[in-house]
């Protein structure tokens, strides 16, 4: 018996050791010869997109540049899928060695990271609806108008500038597809983005025109961590060679983005002339101290907090009213009504809120064109109503039957029993879980940034991207969320104490 036990133990130790060694071996195999590069396939062609024929593979000019670099340094390219706005932080962390995904050259990146030489020159261009082509030629013509772009980009900084200068209203998107569809259906009046993106959209979406005059000129670069400058220099040499021997031209022609700007850029680089990160726009000063950064971003964070709190309160109010109706229907309704309401609750609880928000804002835009705030309010409200209704249903069923019988025997109708006795008692039981849900909603409201609603988390993300660190923006953002949720929790606790009652 003793022998059996010890041999079982030995076997287990042996198996564990073997598994560990294999895992370590596997890790070594992936890191030694691999060239890990990061990009966001959501950005799509011509940069990086999932191959329509083999969706597990990516294609695009950035993919081919990554392959070119890997080939020249005798390594195997390995693609790492990273959300566009997180690529900088991801490179800094070491998840990948280089980021290549239409990443812009900026003074901030030059100061904090090791960007490659620019390999492509783009123009920031305005797109407007065909009918507005004559009246909206420049940003100055767009006073009081909503202008969309991708958040955290040079274009977004330009719009913030134009907000101060001309009074345009910047609208920040998480992707570069929906600004154009929203432009065509009239949710916004113009889009400011790279000509590469604008031209690509113009190929499969009609109804808008690209203005010929460019607002600024920028460049795409690969970004590496500052500590990786040796590899960066090696990559710069590879890029220069590819400019000289026409490899880059071939890649860009293949993806239909070659134009007259490129040979001029390449010539300047090959002649070792300096190339400014951005021309035509004074980029924001970089290297702010923590204190300066905080002072500079605090007003916009406070404004964004206001959006968060107003949106959350209204959405919760809506969720409570609808949740009470659903719960009442499920407790008192006919079989059909109960069945339909249960279906609603299960559908809403069983699908991601992000999906619901997308469907409400973009999915049904052809039928009902909800404004962003309205869609956010409706989406959060409809979603939370399902959860609230379950709380109220449980609370209604938890009201002691003696209280209901006492009310019935006094001759009160069922409606009066519900509104005067059962409902108020249930509300007291529901208060604690409701507070919990409201705090959850406060934080879930950050999801509505996908509908261009500019709330606290989104503002924080932009703050972090601009200063290249999450520490201060993260702390400020956390403090603001706490400042909103703590008083609420305290208020709920007080009410609970006041309403505490025996259920005997």
């Amino acid at each position: 018996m003793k022998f059996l036990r010890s041999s079982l133990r030995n076997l287990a130790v042996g198996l564990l050791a073997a598994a560990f060694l294999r895992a370590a071996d596997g890790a070594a195999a992936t890191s030694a010869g691999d060239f890990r590069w990061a990009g966001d396939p959501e950005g799509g062609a011509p940069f990086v997109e999932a191959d329509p024929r083999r969706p597990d593979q990516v294609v695009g000019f950035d993919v081919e540049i990554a392959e070119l670099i890997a080939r020249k340094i005798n390594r195997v390219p390995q693609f790492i899928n990273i959300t566009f706005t997180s690529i900088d932080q991801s490179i800094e962390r070491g998840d990948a060695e280089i980021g290549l995904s239409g990443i812009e050259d900026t003074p901030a990146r030059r100061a904090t990271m090791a960007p490659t030489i620019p390999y492509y020159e783009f123009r920031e261009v305005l797109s407007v609806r065909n009918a507005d082509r004559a009246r909206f030629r420049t940003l100055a013509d767009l006073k009081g108008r909503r202008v969309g772009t991708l958040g955290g980009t040079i274009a977004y900084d330009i719009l913030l500038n134009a907000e101060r200068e001309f009074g345009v209203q910047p609208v920040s998107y998480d992707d570069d597809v929906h600004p154009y569809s929203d432009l065509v259906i009239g949710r916004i009046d113009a889009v400011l983005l790279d000509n590469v993106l604008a031209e690509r959209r113009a190929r499969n979406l009609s109804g808008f025109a690209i203005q010929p005059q460019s607002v600024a000129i920028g460049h795409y670069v690969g970004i590496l961590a500052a500590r990786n400058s040796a590899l960066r220099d090696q990559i710069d040499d590879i890029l220069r060679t590819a400019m000289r021997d026409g490899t880059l031209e071939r890649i860009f022609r293949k993806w239909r983005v070659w134009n007259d700007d490129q040979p001029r850029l390449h010539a300047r680089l090959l002649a070792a002339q300096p190339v400014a990160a951005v021309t035509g726009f004074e980029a924001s000063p970089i290297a702010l101290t923590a204190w300066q950064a905080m002072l500079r971003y605090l007003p916009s964070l406070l404004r964004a907090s206001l959006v968060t709190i107003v949106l959350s309160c209204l959405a919760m109010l809506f969720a409570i009213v609808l949740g009470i109706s659903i719960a009442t229907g499920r407790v008192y309704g006919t079989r059909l009504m109960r069945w339909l309401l249960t279906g609603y609750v299960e559908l809403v609880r069983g699908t991601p809120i992000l999906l619901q928000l997308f469907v409400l804002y973009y999915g049904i835009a052809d039928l009902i064109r909800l404004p962003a705030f309205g869609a956010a309010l409706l989406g959060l409200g409809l979603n939370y109503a399902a959860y609230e209704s379950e709380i109220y249903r449980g609370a209604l069923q938890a009201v002691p039957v003696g209280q209901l019988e006492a009310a019935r025997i006094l001759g009160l109708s069922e409606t009066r029993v519900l509104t005067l006795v059962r409902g108020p008692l249930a509300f007291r039981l529901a208060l604690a879980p409701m507070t919990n849900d409201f705090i959850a909603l406060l934080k879930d409201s950050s999801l509505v940034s996908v509908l261009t609603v500019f709330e606290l988390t989104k503002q924080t993300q932009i703050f972090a991207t601009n200063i290249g660190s999450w520490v201060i923006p993260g702390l400020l953002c956390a403090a603001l969320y706490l400042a909103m949720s703590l008083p609420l929790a305290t208020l709920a606790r007080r009410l609970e104490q006041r309403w505490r009652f025996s259920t005997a």
Partner: protein
Amino acid sequence: MNHCVLRLQEVTLLRSGRQVLAGVTFDVHRGELVALMGPSGVGKTTMLRVIAGLETFQSGTVHVEGIAISGANGHLPGQLRDVRAKVGMVFQFHHLFEHLSVLKNVWLAPVYARGMPQREAENRARALLAALGVEHRAHAFPRELSGGEAQRVAIARALAVDPPLLLLDEPTASLDANRRAELRDLLCGLTGAGRTLVVATHDEPFARDCASRVLRVREGSVFEDAAIA
């Protein structure tokens, strides 16, 4: 003979196959105070609940002031409303509305079930509370009351809608000797004013002291009906 306020005829109630009431038959006349006597679990409370329309039963009939509830066709909402307008009930555990003040517990039904103007209902509620000696607790909440106070408030609440028939379930359960004497005087006062009372109790001395008739209950039926001299 006085007017018959309550009549039960062959009322039978089965719960999960067990016979809780087995052909209960008795009459109660105006001004009587009838005690349903017997140990716990013999069906006294169930009888009160049947009379109040809180339980469905399988067969037999309950007449309250001429309105019939029949076990055969179940309870119709209209019938229940009519019966409840005639019956008041004081539960053993009072079941005062926990979220409302004592005063509102009392005026709630007159206003929302009988359509009495609120001011009038409030005045009546205060008068009732004063008559029962608990007017000083008008603004307290049920959780703040003693057992005896809660019972008085529960009686006031039941009387506020002025029912001809008042049912009380184990009213002495939470009272000491002094309180019990007070309750006896109170209930006697109510019958003197022409109200009819049915009290379920297993408190023999209390029943002897204040009932005009004692119905002894065993295994879900009345086996002895004795007037008290």
